[in-house]
C-alpha cells in the first residue's frame, strides 16, 4: 500500500505536536478516510529511521523521541531529572509484574516495609495509580502501572516486559552493580 505525501505530512505534524503517544486510531480521525493510519505510521517510522529523532512505539501508540545514541551529548544541554532510587525501581517492577497489587503484598515480596515517600514518588511521577480495592479485610487499595509507565520505559504494552522465568539468570557480580546495566 502506498502512502501519499499529504497523509505522511499530517501524521508527522500530529505526532510531532503531541505531548503524549498518538495511536493509529487518533491519527485516523484526522486522515482522509481512504488512508490506512497504520501504514502511514510505518512509512513515517521508516522515514525517520537512523535520524536524530526517531519514531518509537510506546504505550499503544507512537511518539517521536531522540535517538538513544545521542543521549550522552544531549544530557549536557537538556535538563535530566534524577534517576529513581533502587527501592522505587524495585517497587515499580513488583507492581508491574503483580498488578493489581496491594501495598501489603509488595511489602511481602520485598520482605521489608515500604516507605510512604517511595509510593509518593511513583504516584507523583504518574507511573502508578490506584485500581480499585481488594476484596479483603480493610479493603486495601490495589495499585497498577499507568500509561505513563509504559511511555517512560519505552514499552509498547505490558507484554513487552520479559517473562518472569526469563528474568533470573544474571551473574551475581554483574547484578550487584546497580544502575546502568542492560537486560540479560
Amino acid at each position, binding site marked *: 500500500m502506498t502512502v501519499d505525501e499529504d497523509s505522511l505530512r499530517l501524521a508527522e505534524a500530529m505526532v510531532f505536536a503531541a*505531548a503524549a503517544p498518538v495511536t493509529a486510531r487518533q491519527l485516523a480521525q484526522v486522515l482522509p478516510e481512504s488512508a490506512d493510519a497504520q501504514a502511514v505510521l510505518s512509512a513515517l517510522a521508516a522515514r525517520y529511521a537512523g535520524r536524530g529523532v526517531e519514531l*518509537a512505539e510506546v504505550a499503544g501508540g507512537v511518539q517521536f*523521541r531522540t535517538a538513544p545514541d545521542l543521549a550522552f551529548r544531549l544530557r549536557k544541554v537538556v535538563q535530566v531529572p534524577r534517576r529513581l532510587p533502587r527501592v522505587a525501581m524495585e517497587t515499580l517492577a513488583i507492581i508491574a509484574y503483580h498488578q493489581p497489587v496491594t501495598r501489603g503484598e509488595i511489602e511481602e*515480596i520485598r520482605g521489608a516495609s515500604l516507605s510512604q515517600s517511595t509510593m509518593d514518588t511513583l504516584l507523583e511521577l504518574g507511573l502508578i495509580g490506584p485500581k480499585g480495592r481488594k476484596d479483603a479485610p480493610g479493603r486495601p487499595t490495589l495499585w497498577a502501572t499507568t500509561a505513563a509507565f509504559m511511555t*517512560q*520505559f519505552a514499552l509498547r504494552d505490558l507484554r513487552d516486559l520479559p517473562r518472569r522465568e526469563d528474568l533470573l539468570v544474571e551473574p551475581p557480580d554483574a547484578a550487584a552493580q546497580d544502575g546502568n546495566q542492560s*537486560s540479560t
Partner: protein
Amino acid sequence: MTAISDSGGADSLLLRLDGFEGPLDLLLELARGQKLDLARISILALVEQYLAVIEGAARVRLELAADWLVMAAWLAWLKSRLLLPKDSAEADEAEEAAEVLAARLTALQRMRAAALWLGGRPVLGHDVFARGLPEDFSVTDRSRLALDMSGLMRAYLAAVKRGAGGKPYRPARPALWSVQEALARLARLVGSLPDWNTLERFLPEHLASPLERRAAVAATLLAGLEMARGGTLRLRQDTAFGPIMLRPVMPGDGDDG
C-alpha cells in the same frame, strides 16, 4: 555491594546492616555470595550466615529492628529442623519451609532483575527525550449547556422542599443588637442626657457574651454615625482607641465638630 562468600565477609556486613532493605534483602545478598543458582542454594549455609550476622550485630550492640529478629528466630527454628535426620516428619516440614524460603528469594531476585531490566530501557527523560515544546491544537468549546431532565427535577424538588415543605434546619441566630434597635434606643436616650456621654452608656442592658457586647457597640456606633449624618447628634473621640463620646446637637452648635 559486593558478594560475600565467607563468614568473615558476613562480619563486615554488620556495619552496613542498615543499608539492607530488610532481612530478605540480606538473605538474597548472602545467597548471591554462594555464587550459585538460587535453585541449588544451600539453605542451611544461608541460615548459618544470617544467624552469624545477627549474632555479630548483637555483639556490637546494634539496635536491630523486630523483623530482623523475627527472621532470625524463624531461621534458627528452620536450622534445628534441617539438622534432624532425614525422613522424620519434622525434617520434611523443614524441607518444605526451606523451599518456601528459596521460592521467596527467587521471586525477589526476579523483581530485582526486572528493575534492572527496566532501568536498562531507553528511559524517557534520561536516555531519550520527547519534544520539549509540544503544541496543543485543541480548542475548548464551553458554549453548550449540560442540562438534563433529571437535573431539572432534582432542582425543583430541592427548591420546593426548601420553600414550602419542611423548612430546612437553620441554626438559631444569636439575638444581636441591631442598628435599628440601636437607633431607636439612642434617639430615645440621647435627648435626656444633654452633655457628652460615652458610647457605652447607650448600650442595652443584659449583654451576656462578649460577642453580644461587641455587636451592641458596633450597632450603637453605626446608629450614632447615622444620627450625626442627620444632624441630630455629635460624636467625638479624643485619642485613638479612646472612649467615643456623644451628645445631642444643641441650639447654637456650629458646623464644626
